């Protein structure tokens, strides 16, 4: 019997190693898998490359990883926020490398990796600082920038419900990068509010098919009240 359910966040992240590349879902705090990140911090590994839309908010999640000095490089679109003080301090001290990527290019490059594409040509960023030094091609009279896929060793994402085959549904805007990160990592670990029996998720509404998910961990929502 195939059972991708893992008991507890610590067991789910037990093989994440020093130097690993880790995609982390979430847009701000919506969809941020805080408990998986806490377990990753507790493992004590470092020199990580983190791929996330932001560079942490407040004291939790990605911000805590940066605060603890575990992040060597971050790939994101919007690091600077009112409560990104841990990133700001690390960046100004030269302790963290930043690859700034326009948000749509970030999504497209992650999706490209998950789709097996060698590269994409995107119009976003053409003629700007963020395309400097990159190959440009004119296609049908419009200019495009060559961008390469972003893949990762692991993806930590947060979904609403999952089953033992790894099928997932998400909740509201907490979906954001979850489905595409699940495709782009060698090992995708999903924390869900509940693991339900096979068949309980309507096959017509599965958002992420289980083929993209290797581990599912049930973590009861702590801070967020989930409506029925």
């Amino acid at each position: 019997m195939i059972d991708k359910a893992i008991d507890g966040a610590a067991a789910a992240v037990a093989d994440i190693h020093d130097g690993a590349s880790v995609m982390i879902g979430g847009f701000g705090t919506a969809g941020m898998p805080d408990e998986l990140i806490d377990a990753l911090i507790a493992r004590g590994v470092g020199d990580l490359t983190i791929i996330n839309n932001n560079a942490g908010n407040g004291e939790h999640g990605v911000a805590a990883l940066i605060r603890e000095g575990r992040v060597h490089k971050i790939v994101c679109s919007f690091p600077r926020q009112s409560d990104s003080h841990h990133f700001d301090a690390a960046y100004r001290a030269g302790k963290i490398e930043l690859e700034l990527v326009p948000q749509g290019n970030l999504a497209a490059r992650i999706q490209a990796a998950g789709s097996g594409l060698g590269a994409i040509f995107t119009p976003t960023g053409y003629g700007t600082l963020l395309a400097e030094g990159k190959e440009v091609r004119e296609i049908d009279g419009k200019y495009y920038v060559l961008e390469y896929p972003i893949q990762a060793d692991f993806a930590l994402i947060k979904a609403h419900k999952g089953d033992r085959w790894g099928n997932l549904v998400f909740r509201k805007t907490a979906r954001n990068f979850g489905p595409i990160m699940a495709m782009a990592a060698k090992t995708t670990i999903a924390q869900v509010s509940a693991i339900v029996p096979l068949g309980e998720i309507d096959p017509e509404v599965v958002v992420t098919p289980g083929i993209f998910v290797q581990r599912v961990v049930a973590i009861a929502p702590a801070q967020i009240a989930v409506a029925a």
Partner: protein
Amino acid sequence: MNRLNRDQMAARVARDIPEGAYVNLGIGLPTKVANYLPAEREIFMQSENGLLGMGPAPAPGEEDWELINAGKQAVTLLTGGCFFHHADSFAMMRGGHLDICVLGAFQVSVHGDLANWHTGEPDAIPAVGGAMDLAIGAKQTFVMMELLTKQGESKLVENCTYPLTGLGCVSRVYTDLAVFDLGPSGARVVEMVEGLDIEELRRITGLDLAFTKAAEPV
């Protein structure tokens, strides 16, 4: 002259958003436009973090922090609205499906180049978010900004000096003093506030602005 305040500017932009339009309002000043869209006009508000059919802020105490906008504020979903992931969201822009986006700006050039993501100061921490995708992706990109900086310099310029967000992407600029259409042949004044004339507008912007007599008061 009758300089528009920010709410009047938002109301002016709202007048140009037709029924059925798919619209993304940028963070900051453009967010105000939503307050002036008439309730009877069905307009689809998109937020790049994955929702279409975005509604107003919830009542205090009713916030759901898994239902937020791009500015990470709590919002609601209108009946008929839906959720999607980030790749689909940006495909809506780049793929030419989104009709209008309204953005703020540091500078806009008369040919429609936009600078709104980075001041270029060496100690600034850069952050771009979805600005570049929105600017070049929507069918029409509107900018909403005060025409002059606090120092009195025009933010509508011949060539942007701040780092660019996108090239030739802005078609119209709404300001507190005038509305401009932009294109390959330069800037054309569409409307001015009462008490302002074209010579004064040319003087304060330092630009060779095209003007047709049809330009009406805002």
